[in-house]
């Protein structure tokens, strides 16, 4: 073993070597390109093929939608010799696409509904806005009633049979909720109290809707376009989440009858294609109804879509419930929480957070499924676009492509918005486990 002799060292560096600039392959545009796009021969080939595909797609698409498009015109003559999109036709039909055949002078009512809806959603989405719980409650209670009255015109007339049925039901509810407990000198069950509250709320809504606000009636057969799409989708979304939660809880319940009902409901609605449900609701239901009773043709598919979405939602949420460790339930019970408190404070906040992607997935699916209502004679956005193809005034060879492109853009904007919001919510609520 050689002795270490400090004097034998000829050179000692006393300062650090200055940093060399990074090699060309590591910085700048070329560096980025080399690293990300041309790092190996297969990658380089893929990049070139990809760029070529992107080029031919964009060239065709932009050529059709922008460069060769016709932007102005009075009728088909403007577009008949062009090769690009006929946006003049979309311009002429834009009102139809947004409102359908909604009475022209009353379209401000739709605008008010859209505007309040947009403001309300923006308010709720923005984290720092004041009084969010209050606004949220108003959006879930007052806003639907307001929209119903504004869109239909209110001033509902109920048949005598209906009024008497309601009064009879209310009387039964009152007896069960208050008179029976007084007689038996027991506290009314909390469930019965809430049922009574719900009935009371329905009564108030029914009453408000029967007030004459002087708004002319606009029948639902005049509704169309984006209005119908949004009405069906929003009803479905707002209805399916709470109803889906209840169904999911019911399916996990220890009470056999409730569990059975929930399982049958979920499996029935999930087992039948939506088209079948819509057809049943539209074609068969009127034949089953007693003579003289017709259900509005917009309400029929709305109910169908809402139940259908609820069944799917229930299964998504059940997935979240099952993903929670049993300790969460036991811990909540050990704290002495009753069932509803346990669900509200411990289980659901965690379960729902887990399944946000699934929930939003169902919402987006529901939003796009609304296009199916066109098979039962309703005109949602897509149906209205297809309907406009039948106008000889505008029919040209590019009318179909233009109309579909427009519908696709609108749907894409809405679905992309929902998807981004879901990602934002996931990030915001991501509190560990990762």
């Amino acid at each position, binding site marked *: 073993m050689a002795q270490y002799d400090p004097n034998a060292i000829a050179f000692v560096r006393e300062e650090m070597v200055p940093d060399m600039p990074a090699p060309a392959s590591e910085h700048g545009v070329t560096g980025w390109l080399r690293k990300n796009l041309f790092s190996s021969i297969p990658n380089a080939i893929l990049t070139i093929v990809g760029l070529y595909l992107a080029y031919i797609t964009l060239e065709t698409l932009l050529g059709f939608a922008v460069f060769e498009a016709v932007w102005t015109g009075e009728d088909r003559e403007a577009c008949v010799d062009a090769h690009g999109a006929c946006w003049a036709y979309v311009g002429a039909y834009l009102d*139809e696409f947004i409102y359908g055949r909604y009475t022209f002078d009353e379209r401000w009512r739709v605008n008010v509904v859209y505007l309040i809806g947009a403001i309300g959603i923006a308010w709720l989405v923005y984290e720092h806005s004041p009084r969010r719980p209050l606004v949220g409650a108003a959006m879930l209670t007052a806003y639907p009633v307001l929209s119903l009255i504004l869109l239909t015109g209110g001033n509902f007339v109920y048949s005598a049979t209906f009024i008497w049925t309601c009064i009879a039901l209310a009387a039964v509810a009152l007896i069960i909720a208050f008179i029976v407990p007084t007689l038996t000198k027991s506290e009314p069950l909390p469930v019965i109290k809430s049922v009574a509250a719900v009935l009371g709320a329905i009564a108030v809504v*029914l009453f408000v809707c029967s007030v004459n606000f002087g708004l002319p009636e606009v029948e639902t057969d005049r509704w169309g376009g984006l209005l119908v799409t949004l009405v069906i989708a929003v009803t479905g979304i707002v209805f399916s989440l709470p109803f889906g939660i209840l169904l999911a809880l019911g399916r996990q319940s220890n009470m056999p009858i409730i569990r059975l009902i929930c399982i049958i409901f979920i499996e029935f609605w999930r087992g039948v294609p939506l088209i079948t449900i819509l057809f049943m609701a539209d074609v068969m239901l009127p034949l089953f109804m007693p003579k003289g009773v017709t259900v509005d043709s917009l309400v029929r598919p709305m109910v169908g879509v809402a139940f259908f979405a609820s069944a799917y939602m229930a299964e998504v949420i059940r997935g979240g419930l099952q993903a929670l460790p049993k300790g969460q339930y036991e811990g909540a019970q050990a704290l002495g929480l009753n069932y509803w408190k346990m669900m509200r404070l411990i289980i659901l906040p965690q379960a729902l957070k887990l399944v946000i992607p699934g929930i939003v997935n169902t919402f987006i699916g529901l939003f796009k499924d609304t296009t199916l209502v066109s098979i039962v004679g309703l005109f949602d956005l897509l149906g209205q676009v297809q309907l406009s193809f039948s106008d000889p005034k505008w029919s040209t*060879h590019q009318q179909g492509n233009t109309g579909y492109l427009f519908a696709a853009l609108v749907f894409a904007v809405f679905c992309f918005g929902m998807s981004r919001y879901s990602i934002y919510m996931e990030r915001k609520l991501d509190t560990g486990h990762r």
Partner: protein
Amino acid sequence: MKKKLLTAALGAAALGISAVGASAATLDDVKAKGFIQCGVSQGLPGFSNPDDQGNWTGLDVDLCRAVAAAVLGDADGVKFTPLSAKERFTALQSGEIDILSRNTTWTAGRDTALGLNFAGVNYYDGQGFMVRSSLGVKSALELSGASVCTNTGTTTELNVADYFRSNKLEYEIVAFEKADEVVAAYDAGRCDVFTTDQSGLYAQRLKLTNPDEHVVLPEIISKEPLGPVVRQGDDQWFNIVKWTNFCMINAEELGVSSGNVGEMMGSDNPAVKRLLGTEGAFGEALGLGNDWCANAVKAVGNYAEAFDRNVGPDTPLAIARGVNALWSDGGIQYAPPVR
């Protein structure tokens, strides 16, 4: 299901649906509610399609408007229900609509087994052929060896087979599921001939890249009489619809139009007087006012006006009168006299 029915009933009540159903006396129902429920197509150019203002227009639509004018004195007293081909008969049977005016072909099966009545013919359609004018073909009989674009599994396809075989012509079928695909294939030159109902040919021609380079051949190889349909069992309503259609045809024959109906009221021609109700009580026999036909013509015009406005030569469809001309002009539109 029970839950659904309950909720549906609640929804119905919540939207304030009045209780008006099918009953024998459609006329009384219509008068009571103040409008006619008219079933139309989900968009067929020239027959029933909404325009860019959202108003329904077309030949079938005008018939409903004429009935409304005859019954209620107001051509706008119509609510239109767009129906798919599948829904149309159930909607009529269940009383959801009062008239089905939706380019429906009058056939024996529909007239008898379905419990419906066809109240006349407002357009004689039939299957036709369209070819490129560059082919120089003048008649379908010159089409030997042609490839024919059509829809799969329809009577259209069978009619073509019958026609070509019976005329001993060679042909090749190029069939597609949807009408749009057929048009696209024909436009792309995948076949020489495009066949469907003739009125449809004119409508689809507008969607071709160069509409002017295609011609519709004169031959018609099938009978498709299109007309309004009502429920069986209400003869009064059946008569009203039937005679409103006849009223428009008679008005054309007698030279009565929406423009001159006022002065024609003072005409000496007994046929005009009977038609417009200044003589006789033919309207009362229908359960209407005697000016029923005058109202209909004033609001909608005679058959020629309705035809020209919706499908005629000055519209983009540019359909010639052809067999739909009056019998006196060489066509087959013929209405029994009012007397």
